[in-house]
């Protein structure tokens, strides 16, 4: 493990704060990113000799600001950039800036940086790509690999997204309470999308998908450090941790999907589960339930069960009922139907999902659940039709393979019977 690896981590973790502050100074995203990039290059030269500063973000902001101002002046006067040695205040960078970096400003800076990625006109995949580029600092190549597109296509997508947000008005004043709440909600939704991109396996190799989940968790924890008393942000972080804890058990050796009921729970990450539970506990004290908290609580009930048959389905049913009230959606009802099937049987669940056929006509999981319920009721012909539809809608080979197993089982039973 080289010294540069450790410096790389320090630079990456200082990035949101540093780029956020530089964006406030320069009011121009490209300039802020270039200034940060240059500050990182100087850090790579200085830190190995002098040791990393106590506050890397403050150092990078100070140096980045000087570099950026120089660039502005140079463009005006065509002057050469001063050499490192001539930047006499480089060593004092920290002491000067630390005093000025008050917590609230830092919080607004990071939130603004996250928020500009959530522009409502940007499709969700572009929001995520932009956040990975601007906030997380992933290279275009890495992002392209995660989304299974060519590097030039991703470059184009990010450039287009950037020019769109450049045209949008970004508010640099400290946000008011309502605006803060709106930004927080938009950013939370973007982080959740990022996690789902990694979790739902719509593309990329397993390892890259895990990296997206980890990055989402890192951002959720960052957001929670900035807003430590927001129960929904606690809920979001808990939800991601509890779902990610199951990652080692979700795929079998061949890359096939292993359903929750069949997972080896010994493979679940106990540390992440404990942290998720701790955050759910904290959130519940506020008695202000929200969708992330409830979903986290549901994931917590699953995590709590040592064996699938120990799952408290009554609790899960109740939590989904609460979620349906707060955030009604056909997908929530579909999920609730799974809990209902466990408690009241497949017929009751099937009746429940009947009205969802139209809104979920293009939804893989709807046909997966419907087929499984029909199969339990012995209505094999109808089950087969539902499974065929599911395969047609599958996003990944693993999803399709999973449904094919059901079809094979039906075919076998048919031969046997």
């Amino acid at each position, binding site marked *: 493990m080289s010294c540069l690896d450790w410096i790389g981590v*320090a630079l990456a973790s200082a990035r949101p704060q540093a780029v956020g502050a530089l964006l406030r100074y320069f009011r121009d995203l490209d300039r802020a990113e270039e200034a940060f990039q240059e500050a990182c290059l100087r850090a790579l030269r200085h830190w190995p000799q002098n040791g990393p500063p106590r506050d890397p973000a403050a150092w990078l902001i100070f140096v980045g600001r000087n570099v950026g101002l120089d660039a502005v002046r140079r463009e005006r006067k065509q002057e050469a950039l001063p050499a490192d040695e001539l930047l006499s205040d480089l060593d004092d960078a920290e002491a000067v800036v630390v005093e000025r970096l008050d917590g609230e400003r830092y919080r607004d800076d990071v939130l603004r940086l996250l928020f500009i990625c959530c522009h409502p006109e940007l499709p969700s995949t572009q929001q995520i790509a932009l956040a990975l580029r601007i906030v997380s600092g992933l290279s275009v190549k890495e992002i392209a690999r995660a989304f299974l597109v060519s590097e030039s296509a991703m470059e184009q997508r990010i450039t287009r997204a950037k020019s769109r947000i450049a045209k949008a008005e970004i508010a640099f004043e400290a946000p008011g309470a309502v605006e803060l709440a709106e930004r927080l909600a938009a950013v939370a939704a973007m982080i959740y999308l990022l996690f789902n991109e990694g979790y739902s396996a719509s593309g990329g190799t397993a390892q890259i998908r895990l990296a997206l989940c980890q990055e989402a968790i890192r951002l959720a*924890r960052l957001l*929670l450090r900035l807003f430590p*008393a927001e129960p929904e942000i*606690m809920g979001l972080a808990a939800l991601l941790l509890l779902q990610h804890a199951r990652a080692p058990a979700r795929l079998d050796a061949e890359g096939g999907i292993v359903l929750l009921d069949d997972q080896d729970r010994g493979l679940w990450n106990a540390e992440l589960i404990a942290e998720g539970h701790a955050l759910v*506990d904290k959130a519940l004290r506020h008695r202000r339930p929200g969708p992330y908290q409830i979903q986290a609580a549901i994931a917590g009930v699953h995590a709590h069960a040592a064996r699938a048959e120990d799952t408290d389905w009554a609790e899960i049913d109740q939590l989904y009922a609460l979620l349906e009230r707060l955030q009604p959606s056909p997908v929530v009802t579909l999920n609730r139907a799974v809990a209902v099937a466990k408690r009241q049987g497949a017929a009751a669940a099937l009746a429940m999902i009947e009205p969802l056929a139209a809104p979920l006509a293009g939804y893989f999981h709807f046909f997966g659940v419907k087929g499984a319920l029909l199969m339990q009721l012995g209505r094999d012909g109808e089950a087969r039709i539902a499974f065929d539809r599911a395969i047609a809608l599958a996003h990944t080979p693993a999803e399709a393979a999973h449904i094919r197993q059901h079809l094979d089982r039906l075919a076998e039973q048919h031969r046997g019977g």
Partner: protein
Amino acid sequence: MLYAILCYDDEAVVESWSPEQDAAVLAKRGRVQEKLAAQGRLGPVVRLMPTTAATTLRSGREPMVIDGPFAETKEQLLGLYVVECASLEQAIATARELKSDEAGGSFEIRPLRLFRPGSGIA
């Protein structure tokens, strides 16, 4: 004399470590722990969850429960308890019990990520 060695670092950086980096740090510390345990010098070892999992009971006539870690710099870390609790509520209740009316101070309640009771100090 018993000494406590307290670990400080920037948790945002530590959370960004790759699994290999985390393992490299733990491996080195693990070797020291093994040596200390063999010498009968190792007491409890604790790794705390991130401060995002912390809750603080701030003293005052009406003690206040606030989210997040203890963040004041005017007070110093003076001691710690490791207590088994069924829930955060029980942990807060326990902290309230420990609080005395005369003394000020705060209690940060932080779940543990890892706990090794130690081999018993000779």
